[in-house]
């Protein structure tokens, strides 16, 4: 087995968890919500580094940061319900050498504060980590105001900001640690639902380097965030039908791991991208432009939220509605093959 990452504090725990996954083979062990892992990781990091600051906009409850505030009261800055202020203040704090995590629901953080992100963080190159909580359609039943299906598209078009969408607890933990060590702007988003612990070929995590969850050579699912688990489920359904599916967790959308995408696409007959995002401007379009430039012409489908008023309901109902499920994705793959 290849080496785990250097962040030894978390190394041991992960090793244990992965051992459990192996034992249960295809039935994945349910982990915690990525949101919870984020909060736990940040408390660990904050305790060891006084320069780590969390900035919230009446969002510490939604961000599971109440314990952070209780344990490290000097390291949390509350700005009130003011997301533009949140990002501007975070940029100012970061300019003095603080390691700043600005935490707010992704829908507000990436729309309301967009100019602050573009100018104060990305253009000014302030090492702020923007944490978009309850991303995608996590707030499904609250309506479109609370959905965040545009964030990858807008941030992709802004120079100098990494975009990371962890799929499970392992990736979340390592993304947060990596962000705390990064010298450049990063956007990390996740939901609030418990996520299964996914298997992966290599127990390592690096921003900009995709994780192979499962190897296959008929169809490749290139997915990110909370859609990797349904893609994995689809791969298992396909296996029963004698179809070999590869599953890649493309946790970093920017910089894009072109090599991993091309490798998968070359060996498979068809490619399906999956994301909890508009089908415009996200992972799917990033892959399709890469395929065109590299002259890879294969059956291809972008699965995400189409350009319509998103159906109302819980996140799982919305996923099912748009075919982001084991069943839906396996059918999509079969249609391409």
């Amino acid at each position, binding site marked *: 087995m290849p080496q785990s990452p250097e962040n030894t504090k978390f190394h041991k725990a992960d090793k244990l968890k992965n051992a459990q996954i192996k034992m249960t083979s295809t039935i994945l062990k349910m982990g915690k919500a990525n949101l919870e892992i984020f909060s736990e990781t940040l408390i660990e990091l904050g305790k060891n580094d006084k320069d780590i600051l969390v900035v*919230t*906009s*009446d*969002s*510490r*409850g*939604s961000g599971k940061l109440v314990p952070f505030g209780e344990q490290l009261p000097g390291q949390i800055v*509350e*700005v*009130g*319900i*003011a997301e*533009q*202020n949140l990002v501007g203040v975070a940029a100012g704090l970061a300019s003095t050498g603080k390691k700043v995590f600005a935490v707010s629901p992704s*829908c*507000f953080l990436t*729309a*309301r504060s967009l100019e602050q992100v573009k100018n104060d963080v990305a253009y000014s190159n302030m090492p702020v980590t923007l944490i978009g909580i309850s991303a995608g359609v996590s*707030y499904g*039943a*609250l*309506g*479109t*105001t*609370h959905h965040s299906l545009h964030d990858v598209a807008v941030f992709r078009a802004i120079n100098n900001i990494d975009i990371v969408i962890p799929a499970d607890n392992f990736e979340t933990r390592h993304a947060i640690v990596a962000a705390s060590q990064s010298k450049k702007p990063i956007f990390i988003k996740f939901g609030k639902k418990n996520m299964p612990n996914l298997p992966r070929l290599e127990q390592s995590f690096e921003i900009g380097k995709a994780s192979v969850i499962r190897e296959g050579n008929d169809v490749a699912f290139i997915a990110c965030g909370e859609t990797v688990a349904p893609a994995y489920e689809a791969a298992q359904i396909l296996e029963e039908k004698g179809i070999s599916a590869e599953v890649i967790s493309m946790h970093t959308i920017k910089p894009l791991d072109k090599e991993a995408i091309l490798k998968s696409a070359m060996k498979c007959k068809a490619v399906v991208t999956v994301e909890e995002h508009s089908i415009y401007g996200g992972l799917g379009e990033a892959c399709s432009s890469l395929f065109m430039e590299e002259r890879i012409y294969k059956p291809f489908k972008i699965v995400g939220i189409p350009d319509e008023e998103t*159906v*109302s*309901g*819980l996140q799982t*109902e919305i996923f099912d*509605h748009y075919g982001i499920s084991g069943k839906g994705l396996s059918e999509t793959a079969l249609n391409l093959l």
Partner: protein
Amino acid sequence: METTISSHFRIFFKFFSMNNLTIKELEQKSVKYRMALLKYIKMANAGHTGGSLSCTDILNVLYNDVMNVSPENFNDPNRDRYIQSKGHSVEALYVVLADQGFFPETELETMCRYKSPYVGHPTRKVNGIEFNTGALGHGLSISAGIALAAKKDKAPYRVFTLLGDGELAEGSNWEAAMLAAHYKLDNLVAILDHNTLQITGRNAEVCNPEPINEKWKAFGWNVVHVDGHNIAELSKVLDEAPTVPGKPTFVIARTTKGKGVSFMEDVKKWHHGVPTNEQYEIAINELGAEQIRLKN
């Protein structure tokens, strides 16, 4: 000048209005609304309970006593407008609109369910709702825009918007505040649901908005204070507003978050919270007792 025309129009409308309710009848409606909104929050297993109970009396008075708006005139360009800036308290708005006849109340049984139009924030898919809100800090700008259009059209209608006190931290409110005074929007009434709480805790501890009164005065607004649970006072203040020609009016309605249910009152965790079966029963019993008290 315009204020005079519109207030004449209002008196005229009120005089001929068939369903003028007494204060007591309005008080009874508030209890009914509180019971209904708890019922649908319980059914949906989701909702912004505290803030909805906090603004119930304000919405009651606006729709039953103050505004010239109904299912019959909803397409009339001269109807009064209500924009709920603190969109999360949509449950209160839904039950009041249902009671006005905008849609059958039973439709609220689908609230927050798959494919239901009754999502957790105001949406124009629902009859009676003027604007899609839910992201805080939008309602005042939208309302100022409508009020400005009324001025241009010399139209008699008024525009009401409801803000949360935590919401005041959004800078857009202050941009709109400046604009509304600049354009002398004396057809605009912003009501503050001043319950002193937001999600994290007291406004004063999160990011102190005080002195609210002086801030709005300094921005050129006419500021009025009212007990946000006193139906008679609300009726008088909201009916008369805007009272100063040439100035928008800011009504600071002192309220209690979770009003009407003892264990929810002024408790921050009820910002969004669904009562357990037991809690629900206690809440309904308390409101039921209030209903009986008001009948006698």
